[in-house]
């Protein structure tokens, strides 16, 4: 047990870079502020390299507050990739919207630090801190379009409800601490096996913890904030919330439930079973009547969290592997979809209605074809990443005898087909409603879209490699 700074090198790197960028804001002339975005991307890339080099490291650090393992390592890489993509699509976004580059990137880096810390945490205090670093940065980022009332409203709703749910989670942590006498994962797990798992304090603590995580992961009926917040936030931040933030919460939830609370599996499996069913149904069904693409994708991301829960409920290494693979696939396709929406929305995000996508198929082949790939992947059609994501998740769930839930999931995703398809049909099969306005596609965004599309197809054609990494992280 010692400090072992090296273990947290990627996080430290990001935090230092974030602070340096903040210091650079007043120094840098306003015309060169654009460079902050590239500097942030570079910092993320550097952190990614260190995280990759640390792949395979094991053991505790910071006096047992964090613990390095394959799950944390894999999660860290996922978050860094996601944040780097968000940073790249943000640069042109900020320029186009004439927003200050200043605080944006330090906040994004800090949010990434928070996600990373959650992934490697071995103590509820650390988990809480990671979650709050992530959340507080995200509150600000959601309201970054300060002149836009929608953005203000999004930030305020996110902030108030987020703080509200944090209170529930903290209450749960306090109860768990009281029951187990420790905030360490290992300590709680040990206390649970020694009979604490049956006590009211422990179980209610777990329940409230689940409420807190359920809120952040947007599980029904705690998902209500998601559509409003996602719709009002700047598009790159919506992507960050839907991908990085959601993945961090789900992975932490996975680790907690599988590693710390296996003794209470009966209880949390029942709770999550209901939440998963409700989330899939509500997410897919509510998406049917949406007219705004951002809101549609918000509901879609709710539904996908419902599918991911299948792997958590399975409570097996294969389930965990399915979750991780699905998160990788989900990140690629969702980031890609939001990148296309970001570019297509144009100044002041005026074009985010479904109708605006009518007939763009042949005028913007790059955008429409890649968006089609992402949507097909979200539906789960081979050869795209989403197909294997669903395949592995569902087969792990079948193995865990969750047949009823799998049938529900298959039916729910058949409903989901309808609204994704609607968008594809609009793009390729209908005439344009109004004379087109040019859609400039900045280089960085183009790169992100192409990379995400390539990744989606790669995982759809050759999922083996990522699957084996996910398996290693899941302890298979």
């Amino acid at each position, binding site marked *: 047990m010692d400090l072992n700074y090296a273990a947290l090198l990627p996080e430290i790197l990001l935090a230092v870079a974030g602070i340096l960028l903040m210091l650079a804001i007043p120094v840098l002339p306003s015309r060169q502020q654009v460079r902050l975005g590239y500097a942030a991307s570079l910092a993320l890339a550097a952190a990614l390299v260190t995280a990759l080099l640390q792949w395979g490291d094991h053991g505790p650090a910071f006096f047992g507050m964090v613990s390095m393992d394959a799950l944390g390592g894999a999660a860290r890489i996922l978050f860094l990739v996601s944040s780097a993509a968000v940073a790249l699509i943000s640069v042109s976004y900020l320029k186009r919207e004439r927003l200050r580059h200043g605080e944006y990137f330090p906040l994004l880096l800090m949010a990434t630090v928070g996600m990373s810390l959650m992934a490697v945490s071995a103590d509820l205090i650390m988990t809480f801190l990671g979650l709050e670093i992530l959340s507080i940065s995200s509150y600000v980022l959601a309201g970054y379009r300060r002149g836009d009332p929608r953005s203000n409203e999004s930030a*305020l*709703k996110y902030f108030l*409800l987020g703080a*509200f749910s944090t209170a*529930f989670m903290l209450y749960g942590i306090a109860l768990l601490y009281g029951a187990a006498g420790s905030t360490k994962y290992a300590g709680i797990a040990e206390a649970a096996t020694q009979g604490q798992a*049956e006590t*009211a304090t422990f*179980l*209610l603590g777990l*329940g*409230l913890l689940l*409420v807190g995580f*359920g*809120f952040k992961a947007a599980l029904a*009926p*705690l998902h*209500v*904030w998601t*559509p*409003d917040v996602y719709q009002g936030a700047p598009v790159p931040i919506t992507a960050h919330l839907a991908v990085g933030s959601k993945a961090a919460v789900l992975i932490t939830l996975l680790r907690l439930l599988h590693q710390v609370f296996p003794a209470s599996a*009966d*209880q949390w499996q*029942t*709770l999550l079973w209901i939440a998963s069913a409700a989330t899939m149904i509500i997410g897919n*069904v*509510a*998406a*049917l*009547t*949406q007219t705004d693409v951002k809101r549609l994708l918000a509901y879609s991301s709710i539904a996908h969290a419902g599918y991911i829960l299948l792997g958590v409920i399975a409570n097996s*290494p294969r389930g965990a*592997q399915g979750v991780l693979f699905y998160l990788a696939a989900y990140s690629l396709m969702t980031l890609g979809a939001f990148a296309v929406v970001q570019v297509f929305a144009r100044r002041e995000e005026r074009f985010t209605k479904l109708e605006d996508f009518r007939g763009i198929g042949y005028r913007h082949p790059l955008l429409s074809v890649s968006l089609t790939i992402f949507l*097909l992947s979200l539906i789960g*059609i*081979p*050869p795209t990443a989403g197909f*294997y994501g669903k*395949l592995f998740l569902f*087969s792990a769930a*079948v193995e865990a005898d969750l047949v009823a839930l*799998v049938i529900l999931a*298959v*039916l729910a*995703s*058949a*409903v989901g*087909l*309808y609204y994704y*398809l609607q968008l594809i*049909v609009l793009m*390729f*099969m*209908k*005439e344009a409603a109004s004379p087109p306005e040019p859609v400039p596609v900045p280089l960085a965004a183009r790169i992100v879209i192409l990379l995400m599309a390539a990744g989606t197809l790669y995982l759809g054609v*050759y999922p*083996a490699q990522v*699957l*084996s990494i996910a*398996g290693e992280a899941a302890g*298979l």
Partner: protein
Amino acid sequence: MIEYFWLALVPPLAGFLFNGLAGKRLPARIVSGAGCAAIGASFLFLLAVFAEFIRLPASEQQIVHRLFTWIQAGTFTAECSFLLDPLSMIMLLVITGVGFLIHVYSTAYMKGESGLYRYFAYLNLFIFMMSLLVMAGNYLLLFVGWEGVGLCSYLLIGYYIERRSAGDAAKKAFVVNRVGDACFLLGVFLIFKTFGTLEFGSLFETVSRTHPQPEGGFTVLAAITLLLFLGATGKSAQIPLQVWLPDAMEGPTPVSALIHAATMVTAGVYLVVRSAALYSRAPDVLLLVAVVGVLTALLAALTALVQRDIKKVLAYSTISQLGYMFMALGVGAFSTGIFHLFTHAFFKALLFLGAGSVLLRLHHELDLFRMGGLKNSLRVTCWTMWVGTAALAGIVPLSGFFSKDEILWRALDSPLGHPVFWVAGLVVAGLTAFYMCRLMFLAFYGSPAHGHGESGSEAGTAVTAPLTLLAGAAAVAGLIGLPAYLGDHRLDRFLEPVFRYSYDHGVSASHASHSLELLAAGAALAISLLGGALAYRLYARDRSLPRRLADRFPAIHGTLQRQFRIDEAYSLFVVGGLKALSRRVLWRVVDVGVVDGAVNGTASLFRRWSGVAARMQSGNTRTYAAWIVTGAALVFLYLLSVIG
């Protein structure tokens, strides 16, 4: 060379990439040339493979090629493996052969359409996916092809982008198919969970060891086969998922010929035959397959009687013939199903292309009652379509006679068969002859009702050559499966290695004398001729003839007059009744009421739910906080109940 059989996938894929990427800027001639050349190359290559394949001893006609290990995760392994056995060989030849002719035909049919490059790109991709489907060495790869052909079909149905109904039909086909696909996927999960492998070879071998005998009731195999069969009903348009195929006729006619007649819709039949080792051990599911097949065949044939749209007649006919195939599979006669699939591919593609030729001549007039008198201007189309009609109606010695007769005979003779199946099959044979002859008489004879004039001609060699070739194939294809009283059933022997792990119900062994079989064949032929004759009386009789005859032979006039009355009475009561039954009950209630109602009803139900779900989103933050408290309260209540 034979071990490289999987290279047949390359040309269609290359054609797709070429046209998809570069086609937009190229002249139509190069686009269509590349599209045809890709499929032609694939077909020639497969012919060469076939020449080598046929010389192998039967025990070696099972070539597996592992390209690479596709997914390796713990116990879960999936190979990217291809299988060449007699079944996939024959399917591949049909797909690329008929596919090539339809590509050639398309160059004329689609001339002048915008976005030709997309059309050929999709068509090539379809051939690639379909070949992948039948070449796949395991269920997972098969599923990739399965989904792929569905996607291509979707893209091609919706090809006429400016037509709203085309977009809707495309969506309907896709949604209905997804229901089937979901079942298919569940079945695949169940296979893996039960047997631990998805590779055909090792799976069927395991099954034949663990389940040596067929077992009635709801066994694991029954569940698996049932789920796979539900998938097959979606793709092959069987009850209860048959509703999409008639609507899919919105697509270009060559697409209907290729996808919705000759190849994709038969994928369900292929799936069942491929899984014969499983199906032959689940007799109850086989019975269900047979019943679904018979019902679909009857329902679709009845519906076809009263269609006015030439393509819809053919679409219902396809559904009906697919029902025949499933009936054959259901009585355990797997190779018979494939035999009919083989012959049907030729004559149904021929009929669709013929219909396309009519449409070209009449500027896409689909209504049969506004055609007529085309036999002079469309000579080649007319006689080739007669060959197709005769083959479909089962007139000796054309191909349909042999394959259909074998199905009927197996339905009667197989230990899994039943005389009821045979009788129903006979009725369908009569109906088939009737509606096809009706189509021919209405379209090609009588006086023109279309206003496009008497003159006019075929659309060129690119149209007539495929028609002629297909007519030749439709005429002679039956010779590969002669009935026992005539000689050797080559197809049966050729397919034998495919069924080595299947349970042998003794279907192919004859249980009755040749004379009985001949008698049955005679009955089927008689019924077909009867159906054709009836159609002749109702739709082909020259309306002016009675009057002229009456003027010249007043004595006979009365008789003719009465005859006319009888005829009228017949058309009023019998045909009218049938029409009413078909329109009111079969079409309105079953098709529109039940199936459409189910699809649309579900949609509107979901829309209403969607409103409810969205109402949770009032926009008010305090309401949201209340939801959070509600969630917390629910968790609390549950946990308190656990703690007790």
